């Protein structure tokens, strides 16, 4: 029911706060969308961080491509277009941006 969006890199306070909160309090209706520098969380180097989450994880394809991460992303992450991004927003009751 909550779409969480993260646009900051994995070691930033925004990302740490997001992962802490989602790891302990998200439920199966919540989703995480990675965009801009949040795309780096999808990198295989951060697989352990993502494994803590039990919710669907999406990433904006343009941001993954732009950063050269296409061949490095963790299995199970769904890539979305900008239209898909909007669709995710409409499918969830609310959006929480981790800034």
């Amino acid at each position: 029911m909550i779409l969480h969006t993260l646009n900051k890199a994995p070691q930033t306070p925004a990302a740490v706060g997001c992962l802490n909160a989602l790891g302990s309090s998200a439920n199966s209706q919540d989703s995480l969308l990675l965009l801009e520098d949040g795309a780096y969380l999808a990198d295989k180097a951060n697989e352990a961080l993502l494994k803590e989450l039990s919710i669907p994880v999406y990433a904006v394809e343009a941001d993954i491509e732009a950063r050269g991460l296409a061949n490095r992303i963790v299995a199970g992450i769904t890539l979305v277009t900008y239209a898909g991004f909007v669709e995710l927003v409409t499918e969830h009751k609310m959006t929480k941006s981790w800034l």
Partner: protein
Amino acid sequence: MKRILLTQSKSPYSAINAQEGLDAILMGSAFAECAVLFQGDGIYQLLKHQNPATLGTKNFTATFGALADYGVEQIYCIDEELTERQLAPTELVIPVIPITRSGLCDFIREFDLVLDF
């Protein structure tokens, strides 16, 4: 009446977010029931004894003391984040209601809308 949660996540002088968020709280309180969650380094906005005059900046955080006059009385923080920063409630300019980190998503679900700053 719509219930809006505004979140303040940035330390007070790092970015414009904190001031913009405060403006949004004051405006929002005119037409909705507003609650505020100070999370992450946003909790530093409420620390007493701020004196940004040396930075050439106005101490906008003094306005938080007036939130009750705007009908904004639900002010929350995350308990673990106070502990991590060694902040005691007495060091903050207004009383805050602690929620737990593990209860955060359920807490957010109680609102109609969340606006993040």
